[in-house]
């Protein structure tokens, strides 16, 4: 057989049949479901007289709408969550789908819970009705986000109809300097290639920098694939992946079962000579901590850099686009972005809500105080991340500095739980989207890594975390 890519191997192993020109019917190994989707879709299926084909292959957890600030009840803490979480609970129970419910120690953001529970495995096809499902590609799974109708299709058939995407490899070579993370690498790639570059592609990240990343950093890298336009982002599984997976609740049991799995997983990396439709090579040497200035993730610069001047844009479209983005963001082109006063800092989300992210942020915060007039919050990606952070004393560091310490959920990344940045207010956020209104109507969002966000909370302005620490 000719040389194949990681993507092609997993796709081919899940192909049930071809159903059209370039369109295949694929088997879905793992399906994750969250509160915005679970109740409504399951209810609709029931009303249509359809049953769930393989309830043992779906897992549910509420994350989008749940209150994270002092969660007082098991029903979500706000009116909308109460409705969504209650129907999610009833419907998953009726369908026989496992749920990591509010109040349990396993609840959290789907994309944090999947990997930490060992549900996400290399070589599996994993879907969820959320565009950041690409996160799971960090473990070598083929994973992508789907719409609500497709969620219904997965539940009813345990399959997905899908056009085979083209393949892109982004080879990232070099080392990362201190305070520069995989978040900065992927933001800088999005800045260079643009937010439509990955459209229609499955992206594989490769190269020395990726091999050197731990599994959580790889998940962050893959998480922002959708911001590059790609539904799929993935990294070849290796010994680090196998060590990460081993021993987790739904992972293969240690011994013969795990050995057999690892034998298969070792066959998955792209063969030497495998051909990709598009290749990019990126050097990490020049990458500094990144921060966005506009209303698209591609509007990104080094935290040491200058805000773009619309007058220096080459085309009318670019000029008017830059002007509109700066206007929304309340910024003037030309000056340094560092020094811009901020009102909010959010550390969390499926991009940067894992234990390594909290450790990095805490290392910046230790023995410092949050600036007056800044609301700074930490929302661990899962209850397990929260307990781990507490065991390490990270919560004390954050609380002592003046951060709020929350229960887990999507919170201020998607502003569906009542928490939002006010109109015209400015936030530095470790999440993945700075779209108009994402963190609340007229909210202004600057995306950054956890160290940069933590440093902004201390300084009260956008700041290079390396300046603050040194």
């Amino acid at each position, binding site marked *: 057989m000719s040389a194949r890519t990681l993507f092609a191997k997993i796709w081919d192993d899940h192909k049930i049949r071809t159903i059209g*020109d370039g369109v295949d*019917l694929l088997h879905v190994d793992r399906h994750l479901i969250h509160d915005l989707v679970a109740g409504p879709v399951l209810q609709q299926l029931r009303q249509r007289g359809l049953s769930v084909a393989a309830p043992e292959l779906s897992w549910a957890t509420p994350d989008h709408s749940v209150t994270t600030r002092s969660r007082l009840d098991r029903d979500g803490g706000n009116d909308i969550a109460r409705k969504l979480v209650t129907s999610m609970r009833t419907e998953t129970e009726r369908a026989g789908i496992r749920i990591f419910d509010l109040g349990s120690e396993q609840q959290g953001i789907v994309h944090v819970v999947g990997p930490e529970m060992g549900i996400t495995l290399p070589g599996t096809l994993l879907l969820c009705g959320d565009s950041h499902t690409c996160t799971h590609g960090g473990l070598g799974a083929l994973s992508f986000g789907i719409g609500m109708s497709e969620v219904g299709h997965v539940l*009813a*058939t345990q399959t997905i109809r899908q056009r085979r995407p083209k393949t892109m490899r982004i080879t990232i070579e070099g080392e990362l300097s201190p305070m520069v993370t995989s978040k900065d690498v992927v933001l800088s790639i999005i800045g260079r290639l643009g937010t439509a570059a990955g459209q229609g592609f499955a992206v594989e990240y490769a190269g020395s920098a990726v091999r050197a990343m731990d599994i959580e950093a790889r998940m962050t890298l893959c998480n922002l694939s959708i911001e590059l*336009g790609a539904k799929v982002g993935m990294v070849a599984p290796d010994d680090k992946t196998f060590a990460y997976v081993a021993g987790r609740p739904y992972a293969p049991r240690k011994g013969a079962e795990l050995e057999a799995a690892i034998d298969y997983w070792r066959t998955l990396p792209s063969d030497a000579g495998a051909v990709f439709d598009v290749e990019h090579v990126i050097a990490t040497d020049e990458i500094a901590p990144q921060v966005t200035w506009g209303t698209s993730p*591609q509007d990104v610069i080094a935290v040491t850099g200058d805000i773009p001047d619309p007058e220096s844009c080459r085309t009318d479209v670019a000029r008017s686009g830059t002007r509109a983005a700066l206007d929304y963001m309340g910024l003037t082109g030309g000056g340094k972005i560092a020094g811009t006063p901020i009102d909010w800092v959010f550390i969390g989300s499926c991009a940067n809500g894992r234990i390594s992210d909290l450790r990095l942020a805490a290392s910046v915060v230790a023995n410092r105080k949050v600036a007056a007039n800044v609301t700074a919050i930490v929302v661990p990606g899962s209850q397990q991340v929260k307990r781990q952070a507490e065991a390490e004393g990270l919560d004390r560091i954050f609380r002592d500095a003046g951060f709020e310490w929350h229960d887990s959920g999507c919170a201020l990344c998607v502003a569906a739980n009542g928490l939002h940045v006010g109109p015209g207010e400015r936030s530095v956020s470790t999440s993945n989207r700075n779209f108009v209104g994402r963190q609340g109507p007229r909210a202004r969002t600057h995306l950054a890594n956890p160290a940069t966000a933590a440093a902004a909370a201390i300084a009260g302005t956008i700041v290079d975390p390396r300046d603050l620490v040194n």
Partner: protein
Amino acid sequence: MQKFRQLTGTAAPLMRANVDTEVIIRMDRLIKYAKGELGPYAFESWRYLEDGRDNPAFSLNQPRYKGAPILVAGTNFGCGSSREMAVWAMMDMGLRAVIAPSFGDIFEANCFQNGMLPIRLPDARVAEIAAEVEATEAPQISIDLEKNILVTPSGKSIEFTVDPDRRKALLEGLDDIAETLLFEDEIRAFRQDHRHKRPWIYCYD
């Protein structure tokens, strides 16, 4: 699913690149309102002024484009989150087709699930159509999915292509689930074999 065969109606231009689904429908609206109620909130960040009045600069508010069922849009339209409510909101405000150089992958899939037709044409072609739409007092476009042809306001015929299986589903109003369940036995057989070859996927049962 709602069928799509022919459509003739007003076309409105929205020629910004990378229109994201957040702008199409805000999170606080989609969690509060049901399908059928989202129309007034579609594109609200651009559509209304701060005091709630219509923003006259937003094309779909202008009398000649009001109620348009066809949108002529910029590249990467519908990028961002997977929220299907973006398509619902657009349909609730009367839109049935979008012509653009490219679409966010998940948004495009969601369109096909709901009887909304996304038409991809080369950049230059879309720019030409947008220019015609802007230069015409009452710009009408006719779309014929059976013939894969659209007619611009000036009467120019342009051929387009749509995934054959998606096209068939739109023309006949097919339901994906019912279509897939025709292969139920094959799916079951595949899973048995898959389970035999990769038992660790199922090992926690």
